[in-house]
């Protein structure tokens, strides 16, 4: 009986490690947007943490006023208040599922985490769209039809700047945790399916 409703100890260890990794994500940069131009051979970067913006925020704000983009202020994002708690919550969930080891919980965790990832990316896209399109009509530089939405992921040329958007260390950990969870969930699901006839026989 015990075996049938619990997950394997290997998977439990993975989940506990994932929990610690998620806790670390709270303090690490999750996403980065790198900007490159002739005058900035050293590059400019914007780092997004769970609770703040870092990197050359002021310089980027100074440059963005030419195209009428709103200035970036951490206070404008409700996400920075909520996100650390959400990630903390998930870290706790991972720990709990890892310790208790109930198989049903891991399915629930996987679903919730996947949903969280999707919602987070949609939200991120929404902000990028908003900043790229909601431009001051009195801006010094107006290029008809031009929007300055940075790519969600990958590279895009915006006037003289090349913008390169990629996960930062925290983001990679997040993706890694997601993959590990998917792996554990998949393993559990398959094992359970194989065992089912045996259980039925009993």
């Amino acid at each position, binding site marked *: 009986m015990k075996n049938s409703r619990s997950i394997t100890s290997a998977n439990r260890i993975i989940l506990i490690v994932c929990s610690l990794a998620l806790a670390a994500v709270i303090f690490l940069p999750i996403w980065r947007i790198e900007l490159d131009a002739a005058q900035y051979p050293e590059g400019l970067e914007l780092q997004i943490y769970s609770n703040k913006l870092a990197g050359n925020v*002021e*310089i980027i704000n*100074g440059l963005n*006023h*030419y195209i009428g983009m709103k200035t970036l202020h951490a206070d404008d994002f409700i996400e920075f208040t909520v996100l650390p708690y959400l990630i903390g919550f998930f870290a706790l969930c991972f720990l709990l599922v890892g310790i208790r080891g109930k198989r049903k919980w891991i399915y629930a965790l996987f679903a919730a985490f996947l949903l969280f990832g999707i919602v987070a990316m949609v939200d991120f896209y929404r902000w990028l769209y908003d900043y790229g399109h909601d431009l001051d009509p009195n801006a*010094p*530089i107006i290029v008809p039809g031009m929007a300055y939405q940075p790519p969600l992921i990958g590279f895009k040329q915006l006037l003289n700047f090349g913008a390169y958007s990629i996960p930062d260390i925290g983001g990679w950990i997040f993706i890694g945790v997601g993959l590990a969870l998917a792996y554990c969930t998949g393993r559990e699901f398959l094992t359970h399916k194989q065992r089912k006839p045996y259980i039925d026989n009993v």
Partner: protein
Amino acid sequence: MKLRQYLVFGLAAATMATSFQACRPKGAGSAVTGDAAQRTYIPPGQYDEFYNFVSGGFSGQMSVYGLPSGRLFRVIPVFSVDPEKGWGFSEETKPMLQTSHGFVPWDDLHHIESSFTNGMPDGKWMFANSNNTPRLARINLETFRTDEIIEIPNTGGNHCSPFTTENSEYVIAATRFSVPPDGADSDVPIDSYKENFKGHISFVSVDKETGEFDIAFQLKTPGLNFDLSSAGKGVSNGWLFISCYNSEQAHTLLEVNASKNDKDFIMAINWKKAEEYFKAGRGTKQTNVRYAHNKWDEHTHTASHEIKTEVTVLDITEFEDLAYLIPCPKSPHGADVSPTGEYIVGSGKLAALIPVFSFEKLQAAISGNDFESERYDGIPVVKYESALHGEVEKPGLGPLHTEFDDKGNAYTSFFVSSEVVKWNVETLEVLDRQPTYYSVGHLMVAGGNSKNPYGKYLVAYNKITKDRFLPTGPELCHSAQLFDISGDKMELLLDFPTIGEPHYAQALPADLLMEKSLQIYDINANKHPYKTNGESEARVERNGNIVRVYMTTIRSHITPDVIEGIQMGDEVYFHVTNLEQDWDMPHGFAIKGANNSELLVMPGETTTLKWVPDRVGIFPFYCTDFCSALHQEMSGYVRVSPKGSNVPIKSYTGESTPTT
């Protein structure tokens, strides 16, 4: 027949003429090696190996070049005003050029020397001297700006300076023109030189952390002209060697009257001993002096100026063991100490040999009382032969300065014979000579005055340029010449033009300075009393006829850019704070009719321009440093009304409602 004779004679004459042509000395073309271009070429985007700090002579400034490219990077204003940088024009920098004689806008910056730790350049500061109104300056190598200037009392012509001891405990300042000590008693007949004129050698201490100057003590000497000096290092650490000319104590037509004696002197001073006497309170406090001490404060971005009135003087003739004279042929100029500290090279300007003295022998002579029977004005004179290591025979004509490499060789500049001569310090054998174009004065080997010279490059700073560059009328730049000295023979690589008249120079490895070079001033650390904290605080305040404009600059607007309510008779102070926090984003500020210069405000800095309007009307102002695509739009207007006008004080940017 006759025709044939003419033909033969004509042919012979032509042959003679062409062969004389062939005998002419070859020009510079043959002196350059084939791959010189490759060895001095720094591809775009790459860096030079060395920073070359070069004195600007009568320009009063210090210039910074790259080696081996010879490219000019920056001119650091030191003793002369520089309207380009607002140096001496902005309210903040004016105190730096104050002296006991008032505001002095120009000087003659002669020598420079880096700060040392254990006899090696430590990359903290450059020291510089002014020769006319005697002063000493300290340049900060993080900001490449002048941080401090101190005036030297009792001194006329601070030529023998700013040479520093092995750990920059002291920077030396010594008079080239002996004068009567400062004070009311200095009103004496000029022909009373011998009794009334005195030399003073100042020991200016340098704070290890802040670099701050303090004239610790002065040594008073008989009237002499001190020319150049080197502090001992290694075995001779604790000593100082100064070349002295005019031992004749002439006061007129020195060209003839100071060239009579076959030998003048190198003065050897036991400065550790002098320091002991000073600390033991053996000096006399002189309180009739007045000298300026000006300091730059990096937090307030403002200089302070104070007049000091006291200096401690030790008369060397009252001490038995402070100073000794070594006879040195013919008005010595350079007195240069070898990397080990053992050899002292004296260069007599009019001599045809170079005497090299030994520190060990000098010490033996002193302890053995091996002196000439007659003292010179109370100072013991060591016998020439007793201190002599040997003479470099037939080196050239008119030796001036000597620097050293990392392989035990010395390089001496010869003004009269216009060449650099390489010789071995131990064997005194001449190894190589290369012509310079023309008449080299100072020369510099990278690290050539340190304990472990970097070697590799030598730069000759020539006094005469003539045909080296495209002609520019009667006034020509001075030319520098770069030699590669890594091989047995010196190889000429490059000519490059310089600012003013380079006397001495220093070369520091790029990686000693590159990383710590400051990029911006942190605006949050800006403690300027008239700083504007952001555009929302930009404003105009009147207090009587003093009007203060709290102004900000950021790409690409000035706040406020509309100013009204200024009246005739007002003194307007534009306190410009550059809000930028990005590297290489200075903004300039200039207003029509200002009787001074522009401002050039670095990111995070506050700088002030004083302006007294001279007529009513509208005065445009603008950013002078092309900062952005909308730089041309970065401008504004001031309205000046008659005195007593009822136009209210008003200022704004981008809206027509008054912000004040």
